[in-house]
């Protein structure tokens, strides 16, 4: 994974795990790399990785068992909540950017509907 150096790295580590969970690439019970392994593979400061893992533990996303490793704990309703949180963040960002370009509510709704229509048409063409 390539980090955006303009954003806090520990947040990006957490976001990446959240995405993997939402997509189902990680399942409850799966073991994730140890902090040390993660730091080495991704060339990140071990203290930064520790911060991300601690926050994920505090959110009950993962659990670290002494001598065994760190395991995914989240699933079901909790996972849906994470998914909704992520969607809200994406939407807030999108709306903020559109507003800063001077588009109002009606513009945003129309343009979104049109863009979605185009995407669907493209998908149909490919079939």
């Amino acid at each position, binding site marked *: 994974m390539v*980090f955006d*150096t*303009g*954003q*806090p*790295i*520990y*947040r990006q580590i957490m976001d990446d795990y959240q995405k993997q969970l939402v997509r189902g690439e990680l399942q409850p019970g799966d073991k994730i790399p140890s902090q040390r392994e993660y*730091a*080495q593979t*991704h*060339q*990140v*400061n*071990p*203290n*930064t990785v*520790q*911060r991300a893992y601690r926050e994920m533990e505090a959110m009950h996303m993962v659990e670290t068992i002494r001598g065994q490793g760190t395991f995914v704990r989240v699933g079901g309703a909790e996972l849906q909540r994470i998914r909704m949180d992520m969607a809200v963040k994406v939407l807030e960002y999108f709306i903020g950017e559109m507003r800063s370009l001077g588009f109002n509510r009606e513009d945003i709704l129309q343009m979104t509907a049109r863009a979605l229509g185009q995407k669907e048409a493209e998908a149909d063409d490919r079939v």
Partner: protein
Amino acid sequence: MIEFKEVSKCFGQVTALDGVNMSLAEGKIFGLFGPNGAGKSTTLKLAMGLNRPDRGVILVDGKSPLDNKQNMAYLPEVDHLYSWMNLRQAADFMRSFYSDWDDEKYRQLLAFLHLEEEMKLSRISKGQRAKCKLLLVASRQAPYLFLDEPLSGIDVLTRDEIIQALIRDFRPGEQTIIISTHEIREVENLVDEVVFLDNGRVRLRGDAEELRTERGMSLLDIMKEVFRNAN
């Protein structure tokens, strides 16, 4: 902990450090950033006790740097290795000097960095010399590790190897590493805290993640902005 209190240092007419105050807590990786001539090397040499300040006080764990030499390992920017030696002889030299030399660590790092003991220091590339310098300094167990421009003028692949070796070796909470460099981009993900030096003064210091959160910028861009406003 390393403390600088109102530290100034001049070389002739040139002011290298001008009233520097900072305290660096143990257990973290610090980036000492700034352009050439900012005072980075002077800061490291003063912390090592290789130079004495004209004014102010420097304390390492509450003691004078000279009373703490055995706790500090230093990689100078200049090439300090005897070129007639091969790597084994250079390692023997270090082993005889420092009681905290760790042979197992040396063996592991030697393999990790793809170095060989028979390599003659005068006949190897610049990148390999840089790796040898790191190997010899990082094979000690010193709680303080000072690296002066460890990446400068070295190809990208070798830089990656050096950064990987540092991360592999770093003991969070116990070891304190200070890396001076003007190549910030290479170490963005490596440092816990940063000190931006310019013209012998600390322009900004802080936690790398907090700075990124507050400003939404990379450390390199933050430095550019800080220096623009200072000058």
